[in-house]
């Protein structure tokens, strides 16, 4: 627990894994399929996620990005295929070391502070001090006592991310977390995400915003019609995409 706190406080930029538990990463996905209503929404996906950096998941609407991320996070049961994290299946232990932020943040009908405290308690922590520090870092210290649901859109999403990080996860999923936010809020959230990456939290980030993807991505997973069409380091993907779908998408054309 002490170690976890130190990690969150950002002292450990290099990200040497000092944990006692077996590492959650890397993530290995083999032959993953997901079927709903007779449609194959995820179609035989293979994927390996390494232990560092921000992986941006891109693709046109309906490509299956959100479903893939939910499968990875264990919120949906795959129809076929295997997902393993650190050599193990998606057990509760693994899932508790992941966190997810949704496009529309779901905040408890409580104060800002109580939302953080709830997440901390789930992980057996009861630290008032830590709670204050987390809010401070999220720039929400002044709003600690306010009802969370009365915050602005940007503040709400910042709170949701702060809550996700409060549990000190090793993997953070963000599903279009900055869609429909103003530029300042987007920037604030990108900073939080980058600093988490710097503390060696693995980030899996879904976005439609190509500029944002360029700013954040270490590598890119490009999806189309339930398949991974292209997987490449960020530089290569944006400068010289190898698939037709990805180049159409980046050029702003309809992806067929």
């Amino acid at each position, binding site marked *: 627990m002490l170690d976890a706190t130190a990690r969150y406080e950002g002292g450990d930029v290099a990200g040497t894994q000092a944990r006692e538990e077996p590492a959650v990463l890397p993530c290995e996905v083999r032959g993953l399929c997901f079927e709903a209503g007779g449609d194959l929404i995820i179609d035989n996906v293979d994927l390996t996620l390494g232990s560092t950096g921000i992986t941006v998941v891109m693709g046109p609407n309906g490509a299956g990005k959100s479903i893939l991320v939910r499968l990875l996070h264990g919120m949906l049961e795959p129809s076929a295929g295997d997902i393993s994290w650190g050599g193990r299946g998606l057990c509760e232990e693994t899932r508790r070391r992941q966190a997810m932020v949704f496009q529309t943040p779901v905040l408890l*009908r409580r104060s800002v502070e109580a939302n953080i405290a709830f997440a901390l308690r789930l992980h057996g922590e009861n630290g008032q001090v830590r709670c204050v520090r987390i809010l401070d870092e999220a720039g929400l210290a002044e709003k600690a006592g306010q009802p969370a649901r*009365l915050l602005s859109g940007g503040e709400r999403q910042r709170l949701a991310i702060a809550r996700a990080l409060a549990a000190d996860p090793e993997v953070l999923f963000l599903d279009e977390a900055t869609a429909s936010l103003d530029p300042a809020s987007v920037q604030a959230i990108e900073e939080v995400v980058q600093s988490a990456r710097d503390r060696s939290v693995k980030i899996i980030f879904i976005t439609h915003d190509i500029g944002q993807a360029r700013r954040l991505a270490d590598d890119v997973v490009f999806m189309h019609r339930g398949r991974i069409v292209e997987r490449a380091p960020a530089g290569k993907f944006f400068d010289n995409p190898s698939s037709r779908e990805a180049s159409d998408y980046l050029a702003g054309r309809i992806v067929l």
Partner: protein
Amino acid sequence: MQDFGQAFSLAFQLLWTADADLMEIIGLSLRVSLTAMAVSCAIALPVGAALGMSRFRGRGAAIILLNALMGLPPVVVGLCVYLMLSRAGPMGELGLLYTPTAMIIAQSILITPIIAALSRQVIEDLHSEYAEQFRSMCVPVHTAVGALLWDARYSLLTVALAGFGRAVAEVGAVIIVGGNIAHLTRVMTTAIALETSKGDLALALALGMVLLLIALAVNAVVMALRMTATRYAYA
């Protein structure tokens, strides 16, 4: 229609002079119905939460049944409780018939389905909002139940009040199991029934007005509590 004017001044007079009999009757009404409300909440809120959160075979039927039970006729409830508590009944040994406890039991049975059905709806709405987040956070079931009940507490308070309103206003059940005994089991509604049967319509109406005032007062207190709490930043 002079009855109304007469009733109005009579109601005022009864309250103004704090008529001892009336105060006793009001006190018993409140004690019986508030206790029934507390008992019902203890049973109905967990049931409502369980139904609101879970998915199982037969859930739809259970909800239909619960909703139908909201319409339980008080007289039928009174009769069933009477048969249970009567000396000749299976629980006659307890000697509870014609006591306030019997009235609490009857009213609890009457309003438990109401509180359960309405809280089921409240919890289900909130749960559909929280569910994905809770799943993501691996929130254990008991924590989730607690969180839902807690975060919905103001809506649930309104639900509890609906139950209280039904309990304090019903006459059919308490008159059977309480017996409308003076200074023992006479509550507002049975007193109203008695005065009506004595043909003293003005007094009956005055008592009805007092009952309405009580309901207003209880609701006002709860509303004030809720607003204070909201000011303390728990929306």
